[in-house]
């Protein structure tokens, strides 16, 4: 047993830190730290810097222009990026669609779409959930009918994150209603500038419009935009979800949130002394820190097993549950640390806000926004059912 990173991994960590030090703009890092919405240009600017360094697609093999990092290297990059408050890499093209095209796409699709993702030519979003198909995703009804050399798409997608910036959407659509519901689903790439596509924002608990509804009304999609085979989309969707979950533990985000919480608890006054010295609050902070110490090692154990070729099983579901519980506990403690100072509404706009309270507003906004953590990517209840399903088999 050896818990140390290899010298090569240590050197890689130093390289990532040096890059972040040199390239990450302080104002941008501040916005990320305060969970303020980034503009499209800010996100694209960060992608461009990473792309120039060859680091935008750490998860892609080198043959497709990726960095070909190991799972441990990806973990190091994600951890250091989160601690430095770098913008998160928008996952839809890089983390989700890329691996699907590499595995199931045609040569033409790979040659056309993959370089465009790396160059930032396209902004992808994900068309999975529907009003009637959330946790029961295979119940989706958005329909694609084949008519000669194109499909005609009708229906609705929802919870489309950052869809307001996107020009492309990858969608699960129903191409058959025969057999099991999983067997009639196809994976389609849709140009959002096509007539008949409408995007409407959904304002969330924290007052921001991060997600959208997307409507399709007789939208014509060329058949060459079908990925893999018709009615086999569920297989590709499941493959995508395993990639969506590679950074599921969110150790870096939790570490950054813990550091922030400790700073806040040191600065806030409680009964005439720092809140951090209050035994009750200190015990709560210690207890979540201890959870994070264990979860961080659980994460490394699973990454290390993956690096040795073991297929990921229920581990990612376990990390999803524990990782999101820890982050939500940290968010809750941070918000509570402000006590009565956290009453203002953290909305954007020009209605005014209390003086010097950026971080307080951020604590409320973060709490509100991060309720999503235990809901998206398969809710924690879905993850429990996945785990229990495996346990039931013994």
């Amino acid at each position, binding site marked *: *047993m*050896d*818990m*140390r*990173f*290899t010298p090569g*991994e240590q050197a890689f960590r130093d390289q990532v830190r040096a890059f972040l030090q040199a390239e990450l703009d302080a104002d941008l890092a501040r916005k990320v730290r305060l969970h303020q919405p980034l503009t499209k240009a800010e996100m694209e600017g960060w992608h461009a810097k990473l792309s120039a360094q060859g680091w935008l697609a750490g998860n892609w093999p080198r043959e497709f222009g990726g960095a070909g990092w190991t799972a*441990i290297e990806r973990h190091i990059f994600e951890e250091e990026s989160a601690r430095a408050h770098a913008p998160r890499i928008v996952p839809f093209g890089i983390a989700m669609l890329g691996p699907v095209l590499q595995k199931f796409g045609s040569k033409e699709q790979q040659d056309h779409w993959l370089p465009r993702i790396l160059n930032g030519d396209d902004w992808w979003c994900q068309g999975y959930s529907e009003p009637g198909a959330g946790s029961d995703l295979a119940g989706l009804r958005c329909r694609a009918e084949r008519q000669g050399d194109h499909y005609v798409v009708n229906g609705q997608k929802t919870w489309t994150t950052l869809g307001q910036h996107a020009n492309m959407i990858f969608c699960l659509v129903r191409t058959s209603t025969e057999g099991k519901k999983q067997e009639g689903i196809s994976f389609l790439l849709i140009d959002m500038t096509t007539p008949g596509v409408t995007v409407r924002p959904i304002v969330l608990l924290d007052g921001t419009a991060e997600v959208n509804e997307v409507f399709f009304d007789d939208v014509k999609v060329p058949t060459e935009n079908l990925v893999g085979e018709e009615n086999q989309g569920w297989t590709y969707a499941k493959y995508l979800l395993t990639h969506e979950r590679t950074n599921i533990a969110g150790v870096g985000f939790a570490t950054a949130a813990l550091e922030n919480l400790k700073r806040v608890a040191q600065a806030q006054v409680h009964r005439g002394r720092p809140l951090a010295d209050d*035994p009750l609050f*200190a*015990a709560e*902070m*210690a*207890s979540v*820190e*201890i*959870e994070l*110490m*264990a*979860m*961080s*090692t*659980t994460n*490394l*154990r699973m*990454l*290390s*097993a993956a690096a040795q070729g073991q297929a990921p099983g*229920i581990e990612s*579901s*376990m990390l999803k*549950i*524990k990782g999101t519980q820890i982050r939500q506990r940290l968010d809750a403690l941070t918000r509570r640390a402000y006590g009565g100072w956290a009453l203002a509404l953290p909305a954007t706009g020009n209605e005014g806000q209390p003086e010097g309270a950026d971080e307080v507003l951020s604590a409320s906004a973060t709490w509100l926004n991060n309720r999503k953590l235990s809901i998206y990517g398969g809710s924690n*209840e879905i*993850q*429990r*059912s996945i*785990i*229990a399903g495996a*346990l*039931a088999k*013994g």
Partner: protein
Amino acid sequence: MDFQLSDDHRMLQDSLRGILTRHSGGALWPALVEAGVPAALLTEDEGGFDGSGAAVALIFEEMGRAGVALPLAGTMIGAAAMAQAGQPAEDGAIVAFADAEPGTRYDRGVAIRALGDRLTGRKTMVAGAEDAAAIVVTTADALWLVRPGAEGMSLRGYPLIDGQRGADLGFDATPAMRLGSLADFDGPMARGVLAHAALALGTITAAVNLTLDYLRTRKQFGQPLVSFQALAHRAADLAVEVEQARSAVINLAGHLDDDAPLRDRHLQACKVTVGRVARIVAEETVQMHGGIGMTEEYALAAMVRRLLAADAAMGDADWHLERFARGEPAWA
């Protein structure tokens, strides 16, 4: 980063599993001694041949899985302390570690005090004291060696909750040899915490596995229990917590020989995590079994009792959490 067992440790694990399958009762201790298990818990300097975090963790996890109730942790701590003080214990001898005191949670020196080289007062819950060749006793700030039957010493034996025999020890100006100050023995003490935590991890694993077997086979309303979501999700939560406990044990095992501040942080985190999970598992596995989980005859009963014991030994989750929160060292 490598979480695999070394070849040596894999062999040790195999041989240990064989012994635990073949031997039980009074025959087990001699078999373990013959196979060199107590010696594997000590470093070469202490007269053993390993003493690494990985070895201690794997040995005690196997003990926990198998439900062994032997004073191995106390023997390890006591023998290591004695060797460190130049008073090595006899090979294969049981050493009792007398730490807990009546009337206090985990304070030391409340019920016992040293005057010169004599001890007066009481120790309690001393596992293996009736069979011990030597007793290592803690006071407020030191470790002492007492020989069984020493002048002024009394012993009253009784069963412990984990299946071992324990004893109350009384001292009345009993002659003792001072091994050194408590702070000098933070290494053996840390290894002792790892032993208790790994023992608990083994028990946790056994109790959860037993419960999962039950959920898969027991039917109500015509369905196996595991098909009821109320139980399935709780089983999933237990599986998640077991991984947390395992990681906490690995963290302490991996940092056992690091500098004291870092080691103690992992020691506290380990005891907090394993203690918390042990309590959850004890409560949840009984509930998920239903009535059968209440019976002493069923295998779960002994496991639940051992889980309670593992949390209570050498500072429970609350005690270590407070020290972690205050940034204090593990002891003193």
